[in-house]
């Protein structure tokens, strides 16, 4: 039996033997180890690792948000609408120049400063919906604690003020849209903004903290046209202040929210 040099697998699959490669007989190669059988089904052909986006699961059961968001709504919203966006995005990516971008990068790039490219709607919807499911939790709502509450009170006056502004912005949207609590990077404060269709604060460079889907499919089955009940229930019973805290912590890596800490000499 010939001693085998462990031949590094030829990942590029070019199939061209380099000058230094050891020629090993096929028989001996097979006998050495069955686990590391690098023989390629199509010799001479390059292999490319490809990756596409997939549907992420909400961090709770589909019926966990009852009675404020029914299981049927979540099933259809996530299983059909969100899924449809993911599939359409993947279909675009087969031929798109933006293949390989992360989702956030793709949203910003395809927004194209107001003349969105064809992938924008789907990529932004996928991002926003992921964000939306994570902005909610069963037994959510009530008050935020600690630093988040301080920041909200600093930027809105009182917590009730924030809720009023958020609700007002949500009800001011005509047609489909989203309402966001986001952190303004330049002014270093939290703000509330409504957006149309699939736009999110990512496109203008700020950091979203809470996102609420105001498309009709998000609330029509449960609330029909009573949007204020939907928004109030979201704020009182569904919004996940835990996610908000985590997102604020991450945002602090990009935005300096505190007073400057000047060391005492």
């Amino acid at each position, binding site marked *: 039996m010939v001693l085998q040099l462990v031949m590094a697998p030829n990942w590029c699959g070019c199939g061209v033997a380099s000058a230094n490669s050891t020629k090993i007989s096929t028989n001996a190669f097979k006998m050495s180890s069955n686990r590391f059988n690098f023989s390629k089904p199509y010799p001479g052909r390059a292999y490319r690792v490809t990756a596409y986006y997939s549907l992420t699961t909400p961090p709770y059961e589909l019926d966990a948000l009852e009675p404020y968001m029914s299981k049927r709504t979540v099933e*259809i919203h996530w299983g*059909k*609408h969100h899924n*449809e966006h993911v599939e359409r995005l993947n279909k675009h990516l087969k031929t798109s120049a933006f293949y390989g971008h992360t989702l956030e990068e793709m949203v910003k790039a395809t927004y194209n400063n107001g003349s969105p490219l064809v992938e924008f*709607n789907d990529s932004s919807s996928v991002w926003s919906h992921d964000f939306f499911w994570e902005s909610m939790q069963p037994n959510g709502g009530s008050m935020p604690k600690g630093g988040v509450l301080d920041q909200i009170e600093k930027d809105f006056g009182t917590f009730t003020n924030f809720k009023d502004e958020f609700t007002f912005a949500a009800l001011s949207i*005509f*047609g*489909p849209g989203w309402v966001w609590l986001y952190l303004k990077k330049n002014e270093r404060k939290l703000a509330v903004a409504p957006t*149309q*269709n*699939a736009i999110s604060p990512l496109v203008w460079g700020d950091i979203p903290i809470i996102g609420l889907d105001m*498309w*009709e*499919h998000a609330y*029509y*089955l449960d609330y*029909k*046209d009573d949007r204020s009940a939907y928004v109030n229930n979201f704020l009182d019973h569904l919004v996940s202040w835990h996610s908000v805290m985590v997102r604020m912590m991450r945002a602090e890596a990009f935005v300096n929210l505190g007073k400057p800490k000047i060391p005492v000499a």
Partner: protein
Amino acid sequence: MQPATACASSGLTIPWLRRCSSLRVKCSTSQRAHCASTSTADTAEPIEPIEPIDPIETDPEPDPEPFKLKPLPYPFNALEPHMSKETVEYHWERHHRGHVDSLNAIIQGTEFAEMELENMVLTSYNEGNPLPFFVHASQVWNHDFFWETMKPGGGGNPSNVLKYLIERDFGSLDELAKEIQNAALTQFGSGWVWLAYKAHRLGVGNDINPRPSKKDKRLVVVKTPNAVSPLVWDYYPLLAIDVWEHAYYMDYENRRGDYVSVFLDKLISWDVVSDRLKNAMFRASKREKMEKREMLLDKMKEAKLRVKAVDLRPTPKARPKMKRRQY
């Protein structure tokens, strides 16, 4: 008619008249009496209105409801099982009525309150820079149009001119259905899908078609976002499908394609669409004639010919309007 000529020749804006027209003036009996009593010679200052004889003729209190919610041409459950009673009820009672109320709240007391709805849609669109009540006016118009496009026991096939034009411009009814489906599925967010009769030109000075043909006037499928309608592009809408989610969500959930195909197979009233087409073609040809005449008159003026131009523009009353079906 002597009083009319007096008013017409002075061309003054008479305060009690709704419309200022230098052609003919629409005067009521009391106003004619007033005109007849004053001198018929041209007066420099405007005619002061006298105490009106008929107290009802005074400027009324601003109507708190300039627009009323038009009732549906059929009962709520007439479109079952293709569009459930609940959907129709909510759609009409909450969404449509909400737009009517919002519109009334904004325009009451303003000069827009006296406009016709179609005029108001065009004015408030403001060439792409819409005034705040555009969405409400447009949605009221769109929804009226939408309810009339449907009928219980609808569907079937179009006939006569409509059938001919569909086959000429799309190939077949199936092709048209496919295009409408495509438009509905690619309309991201909310909006409307329309079949419209496209007749008129762009409305800019140099848009003369060097090779005019009969095919310039054709049927097109257009999709519009949110509240916009093809009226603002000077098309004549023939049918409308509401693809806002509230129109189909309770019955079809997210399956917009199914909703549109059921609409075309089972709900649409081809008779209404045919009527609208007939109306549209009539208006379009009238308009074309008027414009040709105006162009000719301008040319003649330029050539400084002494022409006695007889103004044959129709009076406001005689102008054909899109008739609303009275139920």
